[in-house]
């Protein structure tokens, strides 16, 4: 080391440089980062665009599902309309049964309750298969009293309807009910394991006890199937509750071979 006071030592230079450097780094860290304006705006815009696109995608996807379903229903209806025989539309969305000829609804019956279950098991009930409403069915049988057509004895037929016969007395004049005794609770068996039970009940208010008993009875006593059919051959069971008189009045309109289709909740209208 020199004794000359005008000379500084090399360590002091190094210390001074390190101190200046540290001061510069600290000052730089304290300053806010300077990013180019264009890069910052585009990432926010990209996020917003993506959200808009996803929203549009979701909207279109929902629309596609609805269109798919509407197309399916209209194809089924077109197939049924090709024949002029009446067919059934079980509208489970609006809770109605409609008898339709071609595309014209000729008769509509409101329902009070709609339930669907799949195949019955001993200690459980499974869900119905997902695609069961994607086809038409035809009626193979219905439960209820067997009907035999009445035969006219030649020579006696016209006399019963003669209005000019003073001794003719019709049941109507006597106030007797016309028509046969029709069932109010019956099951329609369609092909491919589809069954629909119509349960005609008294309409109006029912107590919780009555509702509970009815529900338990429903589970414990399976509806009667047309003769010769077993309950475990049913894959899908639709149970409909409606007014007693409506259930009875519908019965004669149902014939073997009658076709049917189903409209589910959420389905677009036909």
């Amino acid at each position, binding site marked *: 080391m020199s004794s000359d006071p005008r000379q500084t030592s090399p360590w002091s230079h190094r210390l001074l440089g390190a101190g200046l450097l540290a001061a510069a780094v600290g000052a730089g860290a304290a300053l806010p980062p300077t990013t180019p304006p264009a890069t910052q705006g585009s990432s926010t815009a990209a996020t917003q665009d993506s959200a808009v696109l996803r929203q549009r995608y979701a909207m279109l996807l929902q*629309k596609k599902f609805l269109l798919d379903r509407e197309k399916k229903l209209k194809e089924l209806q077109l197939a049924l309309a090709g024949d002029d025989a009446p067919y059934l539309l079980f509208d489970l969305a609006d809770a109605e049964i409609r008898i339709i000829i071609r595309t014209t609804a*000729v008769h509509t019956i409101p329902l009070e309750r709609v339930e669907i279950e799949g195949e019955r098991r001993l200690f*459980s009930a499974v*869900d119905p298969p997902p695609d069961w409403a994607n086809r038409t069915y035809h009626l193979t049988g219905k439960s209820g009293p067997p009907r035999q057509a009445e035969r*006219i004895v030649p020579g006696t037929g016209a006399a019963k309807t003669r*209005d000019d016969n003073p001794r003719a007395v019709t049941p109507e004049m006597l106030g007797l009910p016309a028509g046969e005794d029709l069932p109010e609770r019956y099951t329609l068996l369609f092909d491919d394991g589809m069954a629909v039970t119509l349960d005609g009940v008294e309409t109006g208010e029912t107590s919780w006890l009555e509702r509970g008993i009815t529900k338990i009875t429903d589970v414990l006593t399976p509806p009667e199937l047309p003769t010769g059919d077993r309950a475990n051959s049913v894959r899908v069971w639709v149970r409909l509750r409606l007014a007693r008189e409506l259930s009875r009045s519908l019965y004669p309109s149902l014939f073997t071979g009658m076709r049917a289709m189903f409209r589910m909740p959420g389905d677009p209208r036909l």
Partner: protein
Amino acid sequence: MRGFIRRTLRTGLLLLVGGAVAFFAAGWLRTSLDRRTHPRQVVPAAEAVALAAAAIPGADLPDALARLDREVRALTSQMLALDRKLLRYRPTNPYIVVDTVANRLLVRNDGKTVREAICSTGSGKVLDDPAGGRSWTFSTPRGEFHVTNRLDNPLWRKPDWAFIEEGEPVPTRHDAVERFTEGALGEYALAFGDGYLIHGTLYTRLLGRSVTHGCVRLGPIDLKAVYDESPLRTDIFVF
């Protein structure tokens, strides 16, 4: 002492078994009642659709969206084609609906009922010809028909079954005088094919009942109104 133990064990066992049975029965009942599904929607809920949209990677989103858009357009176009085909089955205005169970005849215009009349329809009875192998079932046929002829003061030409039903000999000639009866069909008639008519009746007391040989009978006032409202080719739906 031993008997008491035996009785206690037996009672305990019965209670155990009974309890187990009740437990399983309750479980089955609860499961059955729970699993009795009320109808589920076939179209997914909005939340499920939003999740599906969120699962698509951002880079793939524009392509996926374009693809979906094309599918929706194609479906819309297919729907229009289906609608055109279904439109061919649209009924005339007005049209007639015959309910053979309730014995009601309705005249509808644009789906709204403009007239409701009590009628009589086919009895469903069967007549067998004792002489030949012929048999007739007297039902009103179901389906779609059209007014093919409009008749004023129609004459009834009695078919063979009408003679057989009354136990009378069947005339050999189709144009035999005894086949023709005036007034039996009322003042008007609308023919809808295969010999079936909507016509009047002498048996007005029996309106509302299924008593005819297949034709549809109306009272005189309703008959006039329906006749006036139904030109040729009017649709008739019978169920």
